[in-house]
C-alpha cells in the first residue's frame, strides 16, 4: 500500500455515501476508486481531486499539503485534521447531529472478533483510548486479516488499515507541533 492507496481507503466510504445519497459519484467511478485503492488501477490524481475537493482543500489549508506524498501525512490528515474539522463543525458539518459526526470521524479501535457468519469480512470492534464508537460492526473491505486485540483505523464503518499504538502516538505528537 502506498500513500495514494491509503488516501483512497479513507475516502472510499465517503464515496459510497456520495454515490448513494447525492449521486456525486457514479457506481462506475466508485468502482474505479476501489480499484485504485486496491492498487489494481493506476492512481489518477486529477480524477481523485475532482471527486474529493474538500479533502484536498483542507489538507492544503490545515497541513500545507499540496499533494498526497506520505502515508504518515495521510493518516495525520484523516485521524487529526479531518476529525478536528468535524469537531469544530466546519462548513456542512455544522448540520450533522452528534452521532453522525462521530460516525464520520476516522478512529483507532481494537478488534474484538471477526464475524464469520456473513459473506465478506466484518469485525466487531471496541473503542481504544477515549474514542466513542457506536458501530455494531465494521467492514473489512481492505483489511481481511486483522486479529482480536489488534488496533485498526476505521472510517465510516470501513476498516482502513492496521495501526500500531507507537505509530499512532507518533503522528499525534508530530501533528500537535
Amino acid at each position, binding site marked *: 500500500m502506498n500513500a495514494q492507496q491509503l488516501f483512497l481507503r479513507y475516502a472510499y466510504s465517503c464515496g*459510497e455515501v456520495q454515490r448513494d445519497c447525492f449521486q456525486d459519484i457514479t457506481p462506475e467511478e466508485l468502482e474505479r476508486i476501489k480499484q485504485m485503492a486496491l492498487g489494481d488501477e493506476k492512481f489518477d490524481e486529477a480524477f481523485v481531486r475532482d471527486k474529493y475537493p474538500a479533502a484536498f482543500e483542507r489538507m492544503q489549508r490545515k497541513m500545507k499539503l499540496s499533494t498526497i506524498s506520505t502515508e504518515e501525512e495521510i493518516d495525520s490528515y484523516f485521524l487529526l485534521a*479531518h476529525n478536528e474539522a468535524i469537531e469544530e463543525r466546519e462548513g456542512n458539518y455544522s448540520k450533522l447531529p452528534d*452521532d*453522525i459526526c462521530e460516525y*464520520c470521524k476516522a478512529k483507532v479501535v481494537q478488534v474484538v472478533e471477526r464475524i464469520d457468519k456473513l459473506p*465478506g469480512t466484518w469485525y466487531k470492534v471496541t473503542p481504544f483510548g477515549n474514542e466513542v464508537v457506536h*458501530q455494531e460492526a*465494521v467492514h473489512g473491505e481492505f483489511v481481511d486479516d486483522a486479529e482480536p486485540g489488534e488496533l485498526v483505523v476505521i472510517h*465510516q464503518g*470501513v476498516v482502513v488499515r492496521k495501526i500500531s499504538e507507537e505509530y499512532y502516538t507518533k503522528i499525534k505528537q508530530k501533528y500537535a507541533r
Partner: protein
Amino acid sequence: MCLAIPGKVIKIDGEQATLDYGEEQRVVGAQFTPNLKIGEYVLVQAKMIVQRVPKEQAEKFLESL
C-alpha cells in the same frame, strides 16, 4: 466532505430490513442490529446496517437537508 444519511426502518423481514430514504427505499442486512424496530433510524455500510441513530437526531438532521 464526509457525510452519512440515516435511513428509516419501515419493514423488517427476518435478517433483512427495508429502509426509507425519502426518494427511494433499500433492502439491507440487519444481522448486526438485533431487536431492530420499525421507525428506528440507521446508518448503512456495504448494504449492512452498522449503526443506530437516535430518532430525534436523525429527524432533525433530515429536516435540515
